[in-house]
């Protein structure tokens, strides 16, 4: 909830975009990846996105409000933007092709809006640091479909839950 309350500055370009909250990050001990769980406010839509271990760690630190002793790469990007007077206005997961998600980051540079292409992991890591939600298109939630859910459940075998308890 807290994340959604801080959306005062968000630019609403598209009323069909759905703002999602980062619910948590799961560690997949068998692969070098982590799973970011995005969900909507009412908990009816859940979107899992696989990310690399470094990006997953960066997202988890931001989610838990932990400031690492050394700034991570996303902290550095945030520091650049703070110094140069640029803000992240909106982050959108725009597309999924062959199980790869695509995202865009909307920046406010000198009052002008600029958009850059990003991996969702980087976009989510920056959204958390800017305290804004991660928006997705309706199509993404539709395309996520049963196929991904099956793949997700197949990866999460009961034995793995035990292993991830560290």
């Amino acid at each position, binding site marked *: 909830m807290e994340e959604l309350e801080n959306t005062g500055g968000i630019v609403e370009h598209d009323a069909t975009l759905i703002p999602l909250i980062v619910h948590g990050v799961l560690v997949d001990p068998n692969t070098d990846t982590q799973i970011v769980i995005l969900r909507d406010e009412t908990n009816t839509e859940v979107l899992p996105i696989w990310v690399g271990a470094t*990006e997953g760690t960066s997202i988890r630190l931001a989610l838990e409000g932990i400031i690492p002793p050394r700034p991570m*790469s996303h902290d550095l990007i945030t*520091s*650049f933007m703070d*110094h*140069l007077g*640029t803000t992240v206005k909106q982050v959108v997961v725009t597309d999924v092709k062959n199980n790869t998600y695509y995202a865009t*980051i909307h920046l406010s540079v000198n009052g002008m809006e600029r958009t*850059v292409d990003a991996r969702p992991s*980087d976009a989510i890591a920056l959204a958390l640091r800017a305290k804004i939600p991660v928006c997705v298109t309706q199509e993404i939630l539709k395309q996520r479909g049963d196929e991904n859910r099956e793949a997700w459940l197949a990866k999460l075998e009961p034995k793995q839950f035990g292993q991830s308890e560290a």
Partner: protein
Amino acid sequence: MMTQMTIRGLLFDPYNNAYIIILRDEDNSDMLPIWVDRSEASAISFAMENLAPPRPMTHDLMKTILDTIGAKILSAVVTDLKDNTYLAKIHLLYGDSEYSIDSRPSDAIALALRAEAPVFTKEEVLHKQNSEEVARWLEDLKPEDFGTYEA
């Protein structure tokens, strides 16, 4: 005083399961070894080999954002060595002002390589560290260690 450094290579350190970035000065008299983790090493090796990954990696995004803002990356500087940890700064030019921003050396180097900007080291950092640690490490390295990471 500042010394310009070039990145001479990345070594795998099987003992620590980490990588070592080797920086050398121009006349090869000083060496600066910096230990980094695998993702930092991969961010640097992509840039060293001029490879364009299929999706922008974090440092590619970092550079794109700076380009979009209109900030120029002037240099990366390794500024200090404290408790075995190197500190660095990234120097940016934005408008008429120069900015100096704290960074890990790995981020600074990964970004400088992408911007074709120089990497410098403060001379006192070179004096603070002597390359004994790496010399010792290289001595300890047995030929069979090399084989363990040839995949």
